[in-house]
């Protein structure tokens, strides 16, 4: 399963008088792709567009090389969708519901029944499969939604906030399931989430939206490798010091209150920073090496996108 999964070609979506997605361009080919962005950035609109719910005002979307407007029906049979909100038939038993959905995706009766059972065992709800969906707990409902999304064996799985409302244990179980599904190599996954940690744990590629535009599109693995010499500094006075560091050939960003982030080129040693600080009588109060986390990528994207400042706060738990 090589080649791009999703290709956005100047995609523009208008709902009512508002342009929600504004000329998106990019190609996504990761095994598991994270879709990030603050509220109202257009994540759900992009998911809905991939499902063919919205017609583009301009541009195209291709999934596995097929234009969604021209091959919508065929593509939908290859897509599994787990919506964010509760979506099921309350008075149906779990396995009956998943079988129903699999049949609608095109599976013959007997295969649908077999795969419904299989999907229920796979998500860990095997024992509860004959219970009515209305009696399920929140965590079980999330798993049942995942089961209906995978029962027909899609090639692309769209997960909208899959860990919403789950307790830490259930969240870990859900993420492990997503990783297991991803690692089979038979399906590509697109996860839309507010939780940076979820995306970081599962995804190898990230698309970050801001105000309907792509603020960042990056391969997480490559990004991490490229930022191995990533340094965080806290100094008492950054005036002049910042310029001197840049003079050494380092990439440098200031986050206020003396907090600096620096990418050291291969030919620069840390001791040169100490020397500079000494020369300028700057106290280095904290220094640590760290990998470039998704949080940093996200913050950078928010800073760079449209040249605006960071409006979205990232809380300590990684929730936007």
């Amino acid at each position, binding site marked *: 399963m090589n080649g791009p999964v999703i290709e956005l070609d100047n995609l523009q979506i208008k709902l009512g008088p508002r342009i929600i997605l504004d000329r998106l361009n990019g190609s996504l080919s990761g095994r598991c792709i994270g879709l990030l962005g603050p509220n109202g950035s257009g994540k759900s609109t992009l998911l809905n567009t991939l*499902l063919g719910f919205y017609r583009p005002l301009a541009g195209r979307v291709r999934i596995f090389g097929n234009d969604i407007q021209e091959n919508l*029906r065929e593509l939908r049979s290859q897509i599994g969708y787990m919506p964010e909100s509760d979506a099921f038939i309350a008075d149906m038993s779990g396995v009956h519901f998943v079988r129903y959905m699999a049949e609608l995706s095109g599976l013959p009766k007997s295969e649908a029944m077999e795969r419904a059972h299989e999907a229920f*065992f*796979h998500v860990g709800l095997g024992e509860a499969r004959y219970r009515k969906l209305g009696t399920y707990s929140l965590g079980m409902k999330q798993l049942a939604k995942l089961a209906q999304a995978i029962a027909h064996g899609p090639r692309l799985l769209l997960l909208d906030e899959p860990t919403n409302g789950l307790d830490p244990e259930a969240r870990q179980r859900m993420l492990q399931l997503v990783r297991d599904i991803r690692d089979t190599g038979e399906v590509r996954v697109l996860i839309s989430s507010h939780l940076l940690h979820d995306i970081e744990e599962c995804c190898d590629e990230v698309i970050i939206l801001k105000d309907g535009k792509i603020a960042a599109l990056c391969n997480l693995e490559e990004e991490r490798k490229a930022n191995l010499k990533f340094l965080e500094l806290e100094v008492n006075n950054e005036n002049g010091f910042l310029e001197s560091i840049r003079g050494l050939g380092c990439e440098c960003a200031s986050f206020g209150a003396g907090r600096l982030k620096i990418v050291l080129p291969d030919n620069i040693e840390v001791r040169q920073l100490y020397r500079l600080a000494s020369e300028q009588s700057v106290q280095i109060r904290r220094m640590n090496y760290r990998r470039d986390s998704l949080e940093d990528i996200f913050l950078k994207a928010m800073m760079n996108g449209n040249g605006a400042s960071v409006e979205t706060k990232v809380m300590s738990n990684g929730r936007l």
Partner: protein
Amino acid sequence: MAVYKRSYKAYSGLQTPGWSRFTVLTRYGLERLFDSRIFTAYTVFCFLPFLGGLLFIYFVHSSSAQTLLNIRFGREPLINNQFFFRFLSMEAWLGFLLTAWAGPGMISKDFANHSIQLYLSRPLSRTEYLAGKISVLATLLSFTTWIPAVVLFGVQAEMQGQGWGWENLWIAGAIILASILWIAFISLLSMALTVWVKWRIAATALFFGVLFFMAGFGFAVNAVLRTKWGWLLNLPHMIFVVWGSLFRIPLWTVQFRGEIVPVWSAWASLLTVCGFCLWLLNSRLKAREVERA
């Protein structure tokens, strides 16, 4: 390997034909309706007029049965257009109650459960979704209207002989056309009201309201404005006006107090309602509404 030991794998087996997907909705819809014993019992009850009709045709043609029961039928033909009109009218009212039971819950449950987006994210268009849901009602109503009526027509043609079937073939046509109109009208109305109010009880109340309160309003319009056009708001009556013309029954026998509205206006009234229902369904039945909710 046992089912519970298997891990995720993509499906590469046979797929059902695309055109047949909507029948999955119909099959599951019927299955769910017949889960209720009361509904099943009522559906069986709807076949009673058919059995009555069969017996009646048999008695009309069997002199020994007439002698046994000491009944004498006159020389007037008893099995004619009037007979089928009355039979269909009776079945239509029974079918109306069947629709009032089954119709509003069909889509409102999907709205209540936010499951429209699940249906429409599959290889199923909005039209197919609606076709699948309407087919549930169409199947039920067909088995209580035109199918038994056509069977009765066939039995009568067989027992009467002498080319009766060919001479009266237009009655079979009237049965089918009248039933299709009734089924389309009642199904679209119940579905459209459901997507509008999205709450089963309210949709059922509105269903009765549109048919009976509008009729009352029509009476008021006639009385206040001293006109006959208020009849156009009486939709069940408009159905009977159209049926009367299809079954070649004089309009004065189906219309009240000589206030006869032209047949074209009855057609126009019904088709306008059907068109409005389609518009309502088209504008309300969307996956993204669920997303916004």
